């Protein structure tokens, strides 16, 4: 006797999963941006996003609305990312990649510590970005918040895509990431494209944090760390050198983890993280390049 599938429930969970996945995707694209420009994974990406979110929270505590704080914070994060790259990353530009990686680890400690130093450790909550009422589509109730997060994430991705595909600066950044030497011969200031990459990545991180905070209800200075883990898993799944892969991988991961959490009863929060780790390991063992990354040269 066939079991009746609760399609409405599945649809809700898929949408909810896409919403989480959208948040992971923002951070994953930020990671890919910096990785492709500099060959380094920015360990501090999550903490920077957290810091941006706290700045936005402070703005909301001073009477600014959520969306005003959102815009101001994203712009400020863009500038901060550029400033960070110029002060802390540029000096080690010509050093081995591992040196830069350690600098980002140092940055992790600095930003995390600064957040605890500046703001108290008690949990905070962020005003809602979207209405908390549900909306009915085709008779199924969906959360406006979920749909809103999906919308903002996709818009961010679309804007980025348009920038890289159709603007002169975007093309220069792509070229600089692919072949810095040839780019210099064409007159591209490769060093500044890296700074710009950091600016965009930090801004994306801010978007991720700002979207993630309201649904959590309450958050503290460590709230981005699990999200960073999921972002890594999404980026690995999609292919860490492909921004499109990072998006698709993150969305897929979000849906997968959500369905897993809903329909497999013994999977709690701890196990969600373990599942993400398992995804990373399985992908690396089976197909390191992920779904859309360039194939890794295997046997010699």
């Amino acid at each position, binding site marked *: 006797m066939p079991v009746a599938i609760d399609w409405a429930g599945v649809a809700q969970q898929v949408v909810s999963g896409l919403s989480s996945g959208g948040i992971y995707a923002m951070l994953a694209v930020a990671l890919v941006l910096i*990785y492709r420009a500099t060959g380094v*994974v920015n*360990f501090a990406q999550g903490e920077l996003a957290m810091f941006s979110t706290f700045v936005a929270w402070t703005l909301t505590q001073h009477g600014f609305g959520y969306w005003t704080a959102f815009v101001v914070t994203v712009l400020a994060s863009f500038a901060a990312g550029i400033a960070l790259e110029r002060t*802390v990353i540029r*000096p*080690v530009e010509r*050093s*081995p990649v*591992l*040196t830069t990686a*350690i*600098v980002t*680890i*140092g*940055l*992790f*400690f*600095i*930003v*995390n*510590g*600064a*957040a*605890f*130093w*500046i703001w108290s*450790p008690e949990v905070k909550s962020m005003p809602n970005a979207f209405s908390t009422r549900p909306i009915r589509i085709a008779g199924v109730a969906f959360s406006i918040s979920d749909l809103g997060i999906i919308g903002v994430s996709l818009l961010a991705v679309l804007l980025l895509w348009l920038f890289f595909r159709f603007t002169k600066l975007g093309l220069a950044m792509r070229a600089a990431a692919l072949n810095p030497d040839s780019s210099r011969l064409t007159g591209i200031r490769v060093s500044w494209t890296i700074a710009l990459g950091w600016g965009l990545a930090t801004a994306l991180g801010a978007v991720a944090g700002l979207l993630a905070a309201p649904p959590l209800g309450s958050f503290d*200075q460590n709230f981005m760390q699990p999200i960073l*883990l999921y972002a*890594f898993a999404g980026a*690995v799944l999609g292919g*860490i050198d492909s921004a499109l892969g990072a998006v698709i991988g993150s969305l897929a991961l979000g849906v997968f983890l959500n369905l897993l959490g809903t329909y497999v009863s013994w999977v709690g929060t*701890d196990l969600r*993280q*373990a599942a993400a*780790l398992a995804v*990373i*390991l399985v992908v*690396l*063992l089976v197909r*390191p390049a992920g779904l859309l990354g360039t194939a*890794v040269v*295997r046997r*010699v």
Partner: protein
Amino acid sequence: MSRVLRVGAGVAVAAAAVALVLVLPHWLSDARAAEFARAGCFFIAIIGLNLVTGYTGQISLGHGALMAVGAYTTAILTANHGFRDLWTVPLAGLVAAAAGFVVGLPARRLSGLYLALATFAFAVAMPALLKRFSGLTGGSQGINLFDKALNRSTGALGHVHVLGRTLATNDFLFYLTWGIGLVLAGAAWLLVRGRVGRAFRAVRDSEVAAASSGINTGFYKMLAFGISGFYAGVGGSLFVLVSNWFVSPSTFGFDKSLLLIVGAVVGGLGSLAGMAVGALFIQFVPGWSANLSSAPGAPSVFFGAAIVLVMIMLPAGLGGLFRRLTEPLTRRL
């Protein structure tokens, strides 16, 4: 002629190191000696990490987890099976070496960022695994060696009698860790200069070239992970014995793996002296940072700033500075 002088200089440095280790505890307070003993454990683990990352060029973010393997081996054998604590140290090393070989299996096919991510996943997964197999590991509560009547050479408070002499416990622990550390450093030095070390460096400099010369790169990568696992295991095992006689899944979380790689790079990859400096850095700088300010988060800021400053000013690490100072002496000869 210059070769003889270089060897001579090396012997002199080694003799100085041994002398320093023998003499240092006399000038250290009891509490300091205990801190140095902990640094000694990191020294050993970082030597291992240096073999994998500095000499073989494979990035590992998982050495904290390998230390955990060694630590738990010692804890389980001493607390639950009545082994004498010191004898478990080499065993812990061997078990961690086996774990290292297992981690090394995917390393044969992965490199660079992908390997870093795989070892990262391993390091993050370890605490969860330790909690899961609570029957063996005591779960989230960990294993306590402190208040049991155990077969222990290191647990006595106050004084230890060894080799016919009486030492303050923390001095004994200092000698224990740094003594083992020097011996293992010497072994690593020999390894690096031999055929295996050359194979490691060939893999680091160009896997393609190494493979074309007939070097089995996959085997050597696994070997590097296995050997460094032994070192990490010994370090983890000693860490339990010299710090709190207690281990839990959070003792060696991902943050330890991060600290180890910071110590290795800040110390200067490819420099054994640098490894000692790196170990001291990750042991003492967080403490100094805490002394600067007790405001929450402030120590982290200072520690992170120290890391960033060292990397910007000395991209080759502190050990690289040491080498640059002594190189003019050894090069012209």
